């Protein structure tokens, strides 16, 4: 059980800053009553283990997750989503040890898909990756605080990020309702439409994709591909994953031209296959003395995505102009993969 401290209320913020327990922003003091309210909302006992990262010899208890979620500013009804996020974070496929230690400095890019996101007021519309929505901001922040405080991913301790990115504070958003006939991410991943899922991917910071001048589906998608295949993208030519967030104009243009989600992903896989000359043009040599990153294919190209399903295609954002975003994974799939967890909401 977590240690209780008796502090003068006026000293709480400074004490938490001094002890390195915050992300640099003030926190909500995690009183036992606040923590218990979160645990009750997820019907979890404090000692329940949500997951373990064996390489760090650390597990995450429900109480530890709740303490950090309170500090982040979460309401109790957000906590089942945080719990699903922590379970995903500690799934071995995510490789939290590698992703949280890397010089690459990864965001825990978190996509919430399903009815619970709407119920708790998450934002999937205008400014979806920006500020202003409590649920988006605090659920994402809660996962980062768990990574810092429970899994030890603090700068100067077990977080080796060289540059980091602002998404390390929080990078969490809700998927828009599907635009017929496209379905949402969760059904593509095999979950029910009535489920709510949390999908996480260790990513670089978001890149905005601007294309306001065309409604041609291939032209629209080539805009996304040009960013994902750029030589400075670490996964370019190495077989990674990415979140491709399509704003309403871009998604609408592609869908209205009759393209299915599968066709979009297939096209992006094809358009992001690169040559040695593409890398050289970006100042990037092909890695020749490493063991497993660059694998040339029979036609002389290197795949940025080896399977269409490595592209996590989601619709989100506000109407009004041609903006979208991509979040490339921090490293190829032999290092880390996206993980999805169904949210277990108590009846």
């Amino acid at each position: 059980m977590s240690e209780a401290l008796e502090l003068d209320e006026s000293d709480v913020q400074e004490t938490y800053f001094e002890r390195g327990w915050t992300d640099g922003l003030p926190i909500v003091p995690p009183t036992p009553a606040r923590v218990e309210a979160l645990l009750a909302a997820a019907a979890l006992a404090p000692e329940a283990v949500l997951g373990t990262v064996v390489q760090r010899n650390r597990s995450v208890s429900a109480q530890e997750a709740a303490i950090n979620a309170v500090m982040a500013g979460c309401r109790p009804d957000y906590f089942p989503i945080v719990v699903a996020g922590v379970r995903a974070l500690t799934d071995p496929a995510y490789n939290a040890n590698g992703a949280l230690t890397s010089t690459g400095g990864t965001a825990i890019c978190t996509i919430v898909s399903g009815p619970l996101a709407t119920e708790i007021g998450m934002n999937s519309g205008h400014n979806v990756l920006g500020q202003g929505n409590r649920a988006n901001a605090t659920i994402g922040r809660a996962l980062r605080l768990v990574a810092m405080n429970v899994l030890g991913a603090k700068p100067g301790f077990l977080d080796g990020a060289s540059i980091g990115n602002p998404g390390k504070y929080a990078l969490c958003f809700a998927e828009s309702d599907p635009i017929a006939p496209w379905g949402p991410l969760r059904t593509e991943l095999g979950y029910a439409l009535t489920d709510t899922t949390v999908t996480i991917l260790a990513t670089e910071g978001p890149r905005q994709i601007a294309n306001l001048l065309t409604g041609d589906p291939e032209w629209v998608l080539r805009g996304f591909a040009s960013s994902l295949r750029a030589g400075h993208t670490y996964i370019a030519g190495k077989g990674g994953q990415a979140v491709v967030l399509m704003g309403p104009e871009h998604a609408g243009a592609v869908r209205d031209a009759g393209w299915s989600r599968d066709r979009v992903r297939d096209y992006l896989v094809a358009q992001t296959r690169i040559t040695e000359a593409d890398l050289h043009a970006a100042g990037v040599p092909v890695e020749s003395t490493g063991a497993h990153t660059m694998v040339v294919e029979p036609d002389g190209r290197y795949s940025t995505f080896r399977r269409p399903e490595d592209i996590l295609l989601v619709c989100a954002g506000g109407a009004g102009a041609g903006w979208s975003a991509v979040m490339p994974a921090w490293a190829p799939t032999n290092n880390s993969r996206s993980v999805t967890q169904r949210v277990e909401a108590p009846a």
Partner: protein
Amino acid sequence: MGVITVLRPDKPDAEQAVAASSPAGRAPLQDGAALVLIDNGKSHAKIVLLMLADELRTRLPQIEHVEVFSKTSAAVTITDEEARRLAERATLVVTGLGDCGACSSCSVLDAITLEKLGVPATAVITEPFAVLVEQFAITLGMPGYHNVTLPHPVATRPDDEVRELVAGLADDVVHQLTGSVVSPEPAAVA
């Protein structure tokens, strides 16, 4: 404002330098020794490890076999089963090349895993990651665990320069793996 009760958000026990595990014992090397190199696949990793193996064989002629085990990712640790199999056939282990956050931590974690299984092991990392791997050694219950460091970067240096740098590590590696000192310098005369 009054006094309130708040809960700690961290795991204080995990951050204390408590030696929960002991490294493998060091003993004089016997003939027929096997040196296992755990290559993490990073650029130049295998090259550096093989250069180091050449240097070690000149200092430790008891090494008769050198085996390279290549991991599928630099950012993951070896599995328990891989560790058990490697420990069965290794007398000494060197891991590397840790020249980034995830890969240096995993190379040191692999070395510590082998130590726990009774095999002297060390990791070759680059200087910027020395503090990071110290913290991992604490987390894994082996505070003060040693590694060897090369200047950063390695991957962009010519092979001749890398070989020279690696040669400069070899005595320290011998000392770390066997406890013995190679070619001690005569004491300076005042």
